């Protein structure tokens, strides 16, 4: 088994995939929850090094898109390729061990585990847990102070930091980040935004975010989802958060 580090180094140079292949290519993905058809042919691409925002109203399929990539809710049709490799048909842990990290909605800390243990568990087999923990605490010094506390005892903001730290463990190169600002006080949101910006230095990010100014601030490009389909995409550069069309799609 090649180490995470090797993979990271490989990814820096020419990767095994075709040169024009994006890091993540989602093509015509259809995903269902039971009988309800949630994603109705979603296609999007994320290039290496980018931060891409996935925006849209509640219930249009943003979280489902992330869950489809991870094979937590496997698509019934369509293709999801990561570094040119098909993910559909793999199991979730196989997707994760290819360097894909998940920072889920509501953070999903292991509340009964300590802060340190929450990071340790994310270290892949053969990895160096102590180095991973040191690195996480270096990036997020606030966590170091609470290292032996149970994650359930942390504040919402600290939990979000821990979720981001955990997502970066194992030298993950691609992060699926779901609603990181949800339920946090405005001044804490700024800290979380900084943390995501810091994570973006190390990894490619697909970000689901309801807070439009925040999403536009963090991301290079965006995809707007409505009714399980991509209805608009583009660079965040030329988009004002007051954009009429975006507002129309985002207002309930």
């Amino acid at each position, binding site marked *: 088994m090649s180490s995470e580090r090797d993979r990271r180094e490989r990814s820096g140079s020419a990767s095994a995939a075709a040169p024009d292949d994006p890091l993540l290519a989602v093509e015509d993905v259809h995903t269902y929850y039971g009988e309800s058809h949630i994603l109705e042919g979603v296609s999007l691409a994320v290039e290496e090094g980018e931060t891409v925002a996935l925006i849209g109203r509640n219930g249009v399929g943003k979280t489902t898109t992330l869950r489809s990539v991870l094979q*937590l809710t496997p698509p019934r049709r369509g293709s999801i390729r990561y570094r040119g490799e098909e993910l559909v048909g793999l199991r979730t842990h196989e997707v*994760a061990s290819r360097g894909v990290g998940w920072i889920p909605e509501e953070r999903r800390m292991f509340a009964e585990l300590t802060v340190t243990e929450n990071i340790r568990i994310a270290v*892949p087999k053969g990895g160096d847990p102590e180095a991973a923990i040191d690195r996480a605490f270096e990036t997020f010094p606030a966590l170091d102070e609470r290292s032996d506390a149970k994650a359930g005892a942390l504040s919402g903001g600290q939990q979000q930091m821990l979720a981001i730290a955990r997502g970066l463990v194992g030298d993950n190169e691609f992060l699926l980040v779901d609603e990181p600002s949800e339920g946090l006080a405005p001044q804490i949101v700024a800290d979380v935004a900084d943390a995501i910006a810091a994570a973006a230095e190390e990894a490619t990010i697909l970000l689901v975010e309801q807070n439009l100014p925040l999403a536009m601030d963090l991301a290079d490009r965006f995809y707007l989802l409505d009714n399980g389909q991509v209805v608009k995409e583009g660079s965040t550069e030329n988009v004002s958060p007051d954009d009429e069309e975006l507002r129309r799609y985002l207002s309930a």
Partner: protein
Amino acid sequence: MTALGLDPVVAQSLVDGLGQFLRPSTLFSVLVDGLAKSALFLMIATGLTLIFGLMGVLNFAHGSLTMIGAYLGGLIMVLTVSQGTPNGTRLAVFFVGLFVVFGVLAALGGVIEVGLIRPLYDRPPIYQILLTFGVTLVLDELVRIVTLFYDIQPVADWQAALGTKPTWFTDPVDLGLASVRGLALFEILFGVVTVVAVWAFLNRTRYGLVVRAGSEDSEMTEALGIDVRRVFTVVFALGAGIAGVAGMLLMWDKNWGASVPLAAETLLPAFVVVIVGGLGTFRGTVYAALIVGLADAVTTWWFINVVDLTFLPEVVVFAILVLVLVVKPRGLFGLAEVGGH
């Protein structure tokens, strides 16, 4: 004339009983008896709680696995031990047998999980309950057929296996305050080793960390690159192995003994202990085993020595269950006071 309005004869016997109970020698022997019972309850409940905690599966076949462990352990002892076998050899054979029983039951547990339970994880819990209940019926019937074939009475305790104990465990041991059953001390030791071993596994190993994380959120654990399905199999096998080891221990105890009804006799208290402790928490299971074991020992003493109602101690175990469910439906664990009891 009594304050409680009791019949003077009954009142006098209760006062006498209390005096007798509070003697240091009585208290000590009841304590040893209670700890031995706690150790056995712990042994039979540990596998159940690990499996429920991680997978959410209430394994109704757990008692049958214990029962098979008892017969298999008994078989190993009966085949290797004869009248003249010295104590040390008997104990050595027992420990070797433990590994065999653990291995066989773990393998059986692994096969049950992969072959039968795995396809049902996505279904409501009732499917797993019905399935494991069905497994119990099949296993019990198989053992009944095999034992009858070899002329062993399946309903009564297997006397030949009971007789393979070293005399260390049949003779009373004088501990100064009182003399106690040697087997009780062995059982207590066994319980302590089990607690330490399971605690160390859960808290000091990478696999234990995965089990604790998976017990909280198996989807998140999987998304961290961990093959949770394989962890399920390993933990089910581990739980089945511990159930088998518990059975081998019970095979020597005349209060239990290897028999087909042992499956139900152990399943019920195991459920009580697991539920009282709080479903799926090992720490809760340890506390609950202590509470239930000591309560059982105390009431057994009272109902045998003072009030002649010998069937009541078993009722007490279930009375504790009812009481806990009424007062604290999620089990004792999480209550700060539990540690103080």
